[in-house]
């Protein structure tokens, strides 16, 4: 495990901006973090703090205006199937493909699997997200949560080096959500890929993550990077879990109150 | 060696009968063979208007073009000194009638502001030129464009339909055969003007022309064409009934053979290689600025093969 010491993904002083004719929005400001192989790295922060933007930067959709994003030592230049992403939006499925074809498509495109093999892999993953009955259906006939589950299946079936997930479980009910979390962890346990995971739920962050990046409000800066240890669902009621949750909670709160005070002045 | 393919263009209608006969009876092929040129392929193209034909000739896609006197004078004047397009022969002398349904109009002086005269193309068609000549005669020098403001561009069939329907502003139509004769069969239509009267005698309506280069490079083919054309005209005047029959068959025309024969027998319609009253047009067009060069005599715009005749 000599690789373990070298970070898989290095984000160094990354500032990301959106620029249009009239507006300039700085989404994140000088963000640093390292993601090591097999990390389950969680991004946690208030709405609009630049989590999705950071993910887009890592995925290669946006170039930083400052700083560097490097994967295995090489700067990220373009998107690629080694970094499969689950987007936050519902309309990320290809409307012209059925649920199954949506999952098969990237497998074939990226050469991960072909023909029958791809189809079987897709079916297995679709079963895991509980949509076997809807395999032949087009995305517009799915509910919001079902669409997200297809997107999750599509990304998981690819078994990529890095999985980028932008609030994948936000539209899911408590039970489906728990099931999905378990599936994700089981898959991780089997393949030990790396996950970069955005969530809004502190509980989910601790359950899913091995390390948690706390971000400050707009424009997003790094507030803290914490170890989430290896809490499982069994430990949810332990004092350690509660303590960590409390700590994160307080940090976010403090940040918020501070920033609101600041907004009041400015 | 001379060309193995001759490309000839004609337009639509009875006035192109010599070319139709030439095509149907394969006279050019025969003449070429007789001249020792072997099997020459003749491709015929039908055009709906003269200017596209000129473009085709200038771009080298056509060897012989045919059309009205106006376009011929224009292309001769414009290509003098470079392409040197010249007349091969005249094709016919046929009158043009200005007909009207307005009972108040007896001469062109009677046209009022409410009248509209349809003709193929305002200002540029041979009908428009003839009308200007008539206007000059009627209203005096410098007033040749007096009636232009009443003229309207319309293709022959459209103009005819418009005038005959009685439902449009068109009250007069300056057109050619066969339309003008068809119109006169209706009792409400009267003739106001005959181009022969304006020009003081029969006048050339259609001409065939070619580029000097073609004639220089293919003298035998060129000669064969001229003789085939004469042959065709001879055949028409020898048997007008057969010519009418051939026309109706070839064009799948709805006109009856009798009707066409009557038209052919009318002495004002003559098929001849000799231009008639061409110079009157040329002078007028030059005087009004439509062409920049004035031919010295009728022979100048034509190639020498037909210079021997009694042209004018």
């Amino acid at each position, binding site marked *: 495990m000599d690789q373990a010491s070298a970070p898989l993904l290095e984000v160094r002083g990354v500032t990301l901006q959106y620029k249009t004719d009239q507006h300039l929005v700085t989404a994140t400001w000088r963000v640093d973090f390292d993601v090591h192989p097999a990390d389950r790295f969680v991004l946690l922060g208030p709405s609009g703090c630049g989590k999705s933007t950071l993910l887009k930067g890592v995925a290669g959709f946006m170039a930083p205006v400052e700083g560097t994003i490097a994967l295995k030592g090489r700067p990220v230049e373009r998107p690629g199937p080694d970094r499969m992403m689950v987007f936050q939006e519902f309309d990320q499925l290809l409307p012209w493909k059925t649920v199954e074809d949506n999952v098969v498509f990237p497998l074939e495109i990226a050469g991960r699997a072909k023909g029958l093999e791809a189809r079987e892999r897709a079916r297995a993953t679709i079963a895991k997200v509980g949509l076997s009955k809807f395999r032949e259906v087009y995305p517009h006939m799915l509910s919001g949560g079902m669409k997200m589950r297809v997107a999750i299946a599509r990304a998981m079936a690819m078994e990529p080096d890095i999985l980028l997930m932008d609030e994948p479980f936000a539209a899911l009910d408590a039970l489906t959500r728990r099931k999905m979390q378990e599936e994700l962890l089981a898959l991780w346990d089997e393949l030990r890929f790396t996950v970069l995971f955005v969530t809004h739920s502190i509980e989910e962050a601790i359950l899913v993550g091995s390390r948690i990046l706390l971000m400050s409000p707009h424009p997003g800066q790094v507030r803290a990077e914490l170890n989430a240890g290896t809490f499982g669902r069994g430990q949810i009621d332990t004092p350690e879990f509660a303590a960590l949750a409390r700590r994160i909670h307080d940090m976010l709160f403090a940040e918020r109150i501070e920033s609101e005070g600041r907004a009041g002045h400015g | 060696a001379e060309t193995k393919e001759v490309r000839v263009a004609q337009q639509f209608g009875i006035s192109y009968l010599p070319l139709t006969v030439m095509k149907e009876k394969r006279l050019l092929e025969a003449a070429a063979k007789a001249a020792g040129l072997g099997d020459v392929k003749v491709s015929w193209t039908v055009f709906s*208007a003269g200017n596209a034909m000129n473009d*085709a000739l200038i771009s080298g896609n056509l060897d012989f073009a045919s059309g009205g006197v106006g376009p011929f004078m224009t292309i001769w004047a414009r290509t003098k000194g470079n392409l040197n397009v010249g007349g091969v022969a005249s094709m016919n002398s046929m009158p043009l009638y200005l007909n009207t349904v307005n009972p108040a109009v007896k001469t062109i002086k009677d046209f009022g502001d409410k009248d509209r005269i349809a003709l193929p193309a305002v200002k540029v068609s041979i009908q428009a030129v003839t009308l200007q000549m008539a206007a000059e005669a009627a209203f005096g020098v410098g007033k040749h464009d007096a009636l232009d403001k009443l003229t309207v561009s319309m293709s022959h069939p459209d103009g005819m339909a418009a005038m005959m329907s009685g439902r449009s502003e068109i009250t007069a139509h300056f057109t050619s055969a066969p339309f003008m004769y068809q119109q006169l069969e209706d009792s409400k239509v009267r003739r106001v003007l005959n181009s022969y009267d304006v020009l003081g005698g029969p006048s050339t309506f259609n001409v065939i022309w070619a580029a000097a280069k073609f004639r220089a490079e293919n003298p035998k083919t060129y000669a064969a064409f001229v003789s085939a054309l004469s042959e065709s005209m001879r055949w028409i005047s020898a048997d007008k009934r057969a010519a009418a029959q051939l026309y109706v068959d070839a064009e799948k025309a709805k006109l009856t053979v009798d009707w066409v024969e009557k038209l052919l027998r009318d002495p004002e319609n003559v098929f001849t290689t000799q231009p008639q009253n061409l110079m009157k047009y040329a002078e007028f067009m030059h005087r009004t600025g439509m062409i920049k060069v004035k031919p010295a005599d009728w022979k100048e715009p034509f190639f020498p093969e037909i210079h021997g005749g009694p042209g004018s």
Partner: protein
Amino acid sequence: MAEPIAKREPPLRPEILRQTRDVSGLGAVERPLTAAERLMNQAGVRRSLILIGLAAAWQLYGQYVGNNLILPTFFEVLEALWEVSRSGELPDRVLTSLRVLTIGYTAGIALAAVLTTLAVSTRLGADLLSTLTAMFNPLPAIALLPLALLWFGLGVGSLVFVLIHSVLWAVALNTHSGFSSVPETLRMAGQNMGLRGIPFVARILVPAAFPSILTGLKIGWAFAWRTLIAAELVFGVSSRSGGLGWFIFEKRNQLETASVFAGLLAVIVIGLVVESVVFRSIERRTVRRWGMQR
């Protein structure tokens, strides 16, 4: 708006508990429709009604005008259509036209595909497309005449060239605007799979922009017809090979207005058939099934 009644409270009611039933095999539950409603639900029926209405209006107006040199009645035209169809004249001409049309249409679409692919791949390509379109699209076919004659001479080549001109820009404009409107998320999803360049265009942009592309194809098809009929007159016809445009011109010169309209009716019928058989079924199988258009 509800008047804010002084702090009204929702009433307290007992809780309800129920057992659910297995209804997974449930079929359609529908309210019955009246026979008239069912009939009017058939697109075919509605369209036929429209067509019959139009034909009737034509017939009546034609009779009212009462001048078959200008506007023959519908039945006169039908008769003429029957006549020229039976003699094989019209079908022949239609086939000739269709052949040229298909070549020009296909070539135009292919060129549009190339141009728009360029336009979405590079910024210069986008500028090229928009500049060329703005320049050439308003030009009438005669503007191309010299080039056509120089490059292709008389005949089919030139016709095809002009047809391409009439198809290309409309299809390219629609396609490019469709490409530009593809939602960012879908675009990113495609790139995320590693698609780039032509595969990206073909597998993501084309289906995602399909409604626009279809519209472009429809407009291109219609304008190809218009142009063909007009262009056959400009380029002339060798021997007896003319298509529908020449047929119409000929009949017009022979003052056979009913036959002219028969020719136009043929264009209309072909238009309807292509719309209802080709485009409509493409639509049903693609954009509608995919929920991209209602």
